[in-house]
C-alpha cells in the first residue's frame, strides 16, 4: 500500500474520463478500472471519487444512468458525452506535453547544458 503514489491535483478528473472512455462504468467500477489501468500504483480515497463525478456530470462531460451491475445490484453508470470525449483528448495532449517537458528537464545531464 505504501508504495502507491499520491494523485497530483486535477488528475483525478482526467483518470475518471479515461476510465469511462473504455466503456460505461459505475463508481466502484471506475475505481477498479483506474486501479487496473494504472497498475494499482495510485492511491485514491474511495469517497473522493464522487465529488469529482458530480462535478464532471455538472460540466456536461459525463452522463449518468441507473442500471444493474454485474453483481446484480442497482448502480449508477457513467459514460462519456461528446464534450467529455473532446475534453479527454485535449487533456491527454496537455498531459503528454507536460510530462515530456518535465521528463526532459529532469533527465538532462550536466554535460548537455
Amino acid at each position: 500500500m505504501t508504495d502507491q503514489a499520491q494523485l497530483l491535483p486535477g488528475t483525478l478528473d482526467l483518470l475518471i474520463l479515461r476510465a469511462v472512455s473504455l466503456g460505461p462504468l459505475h463508481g466502484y467500477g471506475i475505481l477498479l478500472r483506474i486501479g487496473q489501468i494504472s497498475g494499482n500504483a495510485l492511491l485514491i480515497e474511495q469517497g473522493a471519487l464522487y465529488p469529482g463525478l458530480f462535478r464532471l456530470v455538472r460540466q456536461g462531460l459525463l452522463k449518468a444512468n441507473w442500471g444493474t451491475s454485474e453483481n446484480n445490484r442497482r448502480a449508477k453508470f457513467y459514460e462519456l458525452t461528446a464534450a467529455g470525449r473532446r475534453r479527454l483528448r485535449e487533456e491527454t495532449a496537455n498531459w503528454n506535453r507536460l510530462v515530456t517537458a518535465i521528463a526532459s528537464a529532469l533527465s538532462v545531464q550536466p554535460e548537455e547544458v
Partner: protein
Amino acid sequence: MKLLAALSLRIATLFQRSQINAEMEEELRSHIQHRADDLARDGLDRAEAERLACIEFGGRERIKEECHEALGGNFLDTLLQDVRFGFRVLRKSPSFTAAAVVTLALAIGANAVVFGVLDALILRPLNVPQAESLYGTEYGLDPGFQSYPNYLDLRDRNRSFEDLAAFNFVFAGLDTGKNPSTATGFAATGNYFDVLRIQPYLGRFFHSSDEQGPNSAPFLVLSYAYWHSRFQDDRGVVDRTIQVSKHPFTIIGVTPPEFRGSLLFVSPDFLIPIVNQDQVNGENILNARGDTHPIFEAIGHLKPGVTPDQAVADVNAVGAYLEKTYPKEFGQKSSTLGRAGLTSFDSAVRQFVTGLMLLAGLILLAACANLGGLFAARAADRSREVALRLALGSSRKRILRQLLTEAVLISLVGGAAGLAGSVVLLRRLSTWQPFPSAPIHLPVSPDAKVYVVALVLALVSGLLFGIVPVRQVLRANPYEIVKAGSSGRVGRRLTVRDALLVLQIAICAVLVTSSMVAVRGLVRSLHGNFGFELHNAMLVGTNLAMAGYSGDRVPAMQRRMIHAMEAIPGVERVGLVNNYPPLVYGAGSRVSVFKEETRDLRPANADPRIVLATMGGPPALEPAERDERDAETLVTAALNGTSLPHY
C-alpha cells in the same frame, strides 16, 4: 442561454434536494455494497466486509457535502439548511431568543422612529417644485416675523429673489351653512402660489393681480385634505360663497393633494389673500410698519447664480435702508436665510434631530455589544456542539456561516418587530397634535426609506454581534474541548466579553445621563415658577374675531364675557389674556422696553436684556378698573418673575 441553463439547474437542484439526496445516498451505498461484495469474495464474513468497506470509503457526510458543493446551487441550499437549523436551535432556547429579539426590536425600533422623523424634517424637502432653491428670510426685528410694509419693501428692493411671497396664520370660523367649525389657514400674498410654482387641483388660485387694496380679494383656496374631509370631494364647491369669520368669501380652487403648505409643522386648511386678512383676524395690518407680527415668513426662490450668502447681504442692505428711513418703527437685526419649511427652527430642529439620531445609534450599538456578549457566551456554551461538528468533518467556514445565519435570523426578526412597532408609533406621531388647540403636527410617514434603513440596520447589527464569537470558533480545538467537557473555558474568551461589557456600560452611562438631563429639564419646565398660581386656574379659549367682532365691539363683548363668568358659582376671579405660553405660535408681537434714561425711543435703543412679549391684537386686558390692576400685576410679574425666557 448558458446562464439561464445554469440558473434553472440551480433552482432545480434547490427543489430536488431531497431526491438528489436520496440518489446520492443510494449511489454511495451501492459503492460500499460492491466493495463489500469484493471483500466477502476474498473470504471475509459479510458483516465484517461491510464494516471494512465503510471505513475504506471515508467520511460519508463530508463527501456528500462535497458532492452537493460540486453540484452547484449550493449557496441558497446551504442558506436554507442553515436557516432551518437556526430556527430549530433558537426554538430550543426560547428565553435567549426572546431576550435577543426584544433587545434588538427596541434598538432598531428606536432608530427607525428617529430616522422617520429625521427623514420627514431634514432629508425630505418641502413638497413643492424645485424646493432646493427655496429660502425663507429671517429679517426685521424678529426672525420670522415682520410687518407687511417691510415685506413689501423687501420684495421690491431685493435683487436676489426671483419673487418673494409671504404668509401668516389665520384662525377662522368657517361657515358653509351648516356645522360652522374653526379652521386654520394661511393668509398669503397674491404671488404665493406662483412663487411656490403650484398648480391648482381644481378651479384656480389667486394671483398678485387680484390684490387691489384692503379686502379687495375675498377669495378662498381649500387645501386638498380639508376639501376631502370637510367637503367630501365635492367638485361643485368652486364658486360657492361661504362665511369666514362672518365675512363672505368665494371658494375659487383646491390645492393639489401633495401640497401641504410652505411649513412642515403646520398645514393650512385653506388659504386666503393677505389683503383680506383684516376681515378674518379683526385687525388692520396692511399699513402698520412697526407691527412685526403680520408676516410669519417671506419665502422665495433665489435667482439662478445667487448664493445664499449674497442673498443675506442683499437682505441686510434692504434692512439697513429701512432702519435709516423708518428709525421709529424699524429695528434692524442682521438677517439670515433658512431652508423653507422649518423657517427659523431649521438649525434647532437639525441639531435636535441629529442629536436624537446619535443617541438612537448609541442605543443600537449598546444592544449590539450586549448581544455580542450573549452570542459569545452562547458559543462558549455550545463549544461541545461545535467541537463535535468539527470532529465529524464539518468545515469551520460552514460552522461560522451557520452561527452568522443564526445571528442574522435574530436580527431580522428583531428588526421586523422593531419596524412594526416604529411604524405604529410613526403613524400615531403623524396624527398626534401636541397642542390640542394648535394645528401643529409632525409630517412623518413611514415609507420605503425607513424600511430600508431598518433592514440595513438589522443586517449590519446582526453581522456585528454575530462576528463576536468568530475567533472563538476558529480557535476551537475539537479534541481539547471534547476531552475537557463543556466546562472547558479559556481565558481569552472572557477578555473579549469583558471588553464588550465595558463598552456596553459606557454607552449606557451616556444614554442614562442624557435621558436624566432631558427628564430633569422637562420636570423643571413643567413645574417652573410662573409668578402666579397655576393651581385651580382654568382657561376658556375664545376668538371673538372668528365670530365677526372687531374694533369697539370687542371690549364690550369681553366685558360681558367676564361678567358672565364671574356669575358662575365657585369662580373667584376672572382675567383676560390674549395668549398664554407655551402657545405663542400665533401672531405674536414684541414691544421694545426702554431704560428710564433713554430719550430717543427708537427700537435700536431698546434695552436688549428685556424683551416683553405681548400678543398682537386689541389690548390684552379689558380696561375696566379692576382688570387694569390685573394688567399691572401681570406685567410686573412678568418683569420680576422668571417666566420670560428672554429675561
